[in-house]
């Protein structure tokens, strides 16, 4: 790829034309991409913020907001001659796994109930009357009374006059984690593009590395293309990692095709790369670009439906929210990942991203300072 220089210039010689190229058209570009990836790989902070942090966020929020199994109802049964009857009935009932009985003295039971340790106190009195002590202002106490009464009555032989049937709706796809993962992917694509392009460029400008690079025959377009390409390569890894994490840890179901998801991610990454380039077009110090990047991203963290649906905001501002690039990216990702909506159906949202990215890129080229 590289040759030893063919001629050494002679005293007084003025060259007349360029030497034939030993390096190919894309040699510089390839080296720039490789150098960028090597630098990122050798920067532990980058690995953490780009790859580990989103996973931790998904794990934390996924656990905190998971649909818990129905709580076990803890009740006290007052120890008496007939207490065993109640225990037997509960043992036979269909709800036995949801009810945890504790055999206690009257005083212990009353005290535990007062402290909220038990949701209900059951006492079987003379004549097989079942006496319930409960607090109607405590929802769990109300629920416990209804559940326990139902369990005891049914176990004792009560027949329901009306036939019923039920369906359970906590399938993968409608849980919080299913909503969250595509949002995190969108946010990660935005963060990584803004920092990976915007911050990186200003840092190189501050170190005068940009100036040094444009003092070589390097094509400036190659430099920008290399930054964008390394971003795309990383984006693929990030998306795969977050989706894989959702599938493995939370049994998430990815309905859309991986290709569609990656294409949407690529449009998003390039769109935000354009915005990142614009934020970096003039700033001379990393402090000023950091502020700028946060100002640009802050509204989208809040409004673009990363952690909760933007439908909760007033109707008047909905149109504004929908033209934010991250909203478009998140909606497109959710439609694809959760509903399997095809790439072609996302044209409107992708157009929002392309316009944001394209217009930003245009202004960035106009204002950009290499030195």
């Amino acid at each position, binding site marked *: 790829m590289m*040759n030893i220089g063919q001629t050494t210039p002679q005293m007084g*010689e003025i060259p007349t034309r360029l030497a034939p190229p030993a*390096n190919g058209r894309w040699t510089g570009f390839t*080296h720039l991409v490789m150098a960028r990836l090597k630098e990122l790989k050798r920067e532990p902070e980058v690995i953490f913020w780009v790859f580990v942090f989103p996973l931790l966020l998904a794990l934390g929020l996924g656990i905190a907001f998971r649909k818990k199994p129905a709580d076990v109802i803890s009740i006290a049964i007052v120890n008496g001659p007939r207490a065993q009857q109640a225990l037997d009935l509960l043992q036979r009932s269909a709800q036995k796994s949801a009810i945890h009985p504790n055999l206690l003295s009257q005083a212990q039971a009353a005290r535990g109930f007062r402290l909220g340790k038990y949701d209900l106190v059951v006492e079987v009195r003379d004549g097989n009357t079942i006496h319930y002590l409960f607090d109607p202002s405590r929802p769990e106490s109300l629920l416990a009374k209804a559940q326990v009464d139902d369990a005891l009555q049914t176990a004792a032989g009560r027949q329901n006059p009306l036939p019923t049937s039920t369906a359970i709706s906590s399938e993968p796809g409608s849980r919080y984690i299913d909503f969250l993962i595509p949002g995190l992917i969108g946010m990660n694509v935005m963060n990584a593009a803004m920092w990976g392009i915007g911050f990186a460029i200003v840092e190189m400008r501050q170190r*005068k590395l940009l*100036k*040094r690079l444009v003092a070589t025959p390097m094509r400036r377009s190659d430099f920008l293309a290399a930054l964008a390409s390394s971003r795309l390569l990383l984006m693929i890894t990030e998306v795969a990692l977050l989706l894989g994490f959702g599938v493995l840890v939370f049994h998430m179901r990815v309905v859309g095709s991986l290709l569609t998801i990656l294409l949407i991610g690529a449009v998003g990454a390039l769109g935000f790369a354009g915005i990142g380039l614009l934020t970096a077009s003039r700033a001379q110090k990393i402090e000023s670009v950091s502020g700028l990047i946060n100002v640009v991203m802050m509204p989208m963290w809040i409004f673009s439906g990363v952690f909760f649906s933007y439908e909760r905001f007033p109707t008047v501002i909905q149109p504004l929210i929908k033209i934010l690039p991250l909203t478009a990216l998140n909606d497109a990702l959710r439609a694809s990942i959760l509903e399997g909506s095809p790439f072609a159906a996302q044209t409107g949202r992708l157009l929002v991203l392309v316009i944001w990215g394209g217009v930003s890129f245009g202004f960035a080229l106009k204002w950009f300072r290499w030195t």
Partner: protein
Amino acid sequence: MPFAVECRDLRKTYDGKVQAVRGLSLGIGAGECFGLLGPNGAGKTTTIEILEGLLQPTSGEVTILGRTWQENPRELREWLGISLQETRLSEKLMVRETIELFASFYRQPSSADEVLRELQLAEKADAWVGKLSGGQRQRLAVATALVGNPKVLFLDEPTTGLDPQSRRQLWDIIRGFQRKGGTVLLTTHYMDEAERLCDRLAIVDHGQIIAEGTPSDLIARLGGHHVVEFEVSGNSTRDGAMDHWRELPGVEAVRHDDGLVSLTVREPHLTIPALLAAVEQLGRVLQHLTTRQASLEDVFVRLTGRHLRED
């Protein structure tokens, strides 16, 4: 001899106010090592960055190897090797990777191994740039300039802040490039560097060239050949005394600095006996007397009334 680098009436005004360069013209012959010598803020960096095509001059013309930045930027980038003042290369890349990255931009680069060997960086080839010493970093900066096989080398203060050994290593590298026929333009505020390294130099102050020539020529023309420095009892610089010194035979200039009098003289063997006689005649006692060869520092002080290293 054709000029490899030439500029005429270069001017640069920042924000319509600060005049960094005010009508600077120079010509550097092919194969020559040319130095721009001057204090900080003299306009050296602005000048060299205009020549490098990194700054747009407010007015003036630049021709390098017969080309201009407007018409042949691509060729000029191929033919120029540049080391800026204080570039911080990526710390997490290895030395070899950095050189190969810069080599990848050129049509006919030297091999990385050859450059590593030439710049005595072979041992550090696999070290991260962040782990290099100041001298090694500076050699790497020059390596990135040399790897493209340039015909002209621009070095902006290549040895500032380096220890004497690292400076000599860099001088050897620059001489080696020049021996192979390369043309060098460097800026410096070190006198000894300019004297030893440069075939010709221009002294720059306030954005203008105030003197130009070979180092020995400049010293002979402007500094006199010798400097006699002395101190006498009493006030040796009082008004009357200064006139005495100025009237001594062979004295070209008189300066004083905190009681120390410096005479610039052509023939010390005539001046010194006369000086001793004058001291005795005035009833003073000589407390200190040295003579030395004049240096570029003397030239600079003579021209500007200031020392080079102070701002």
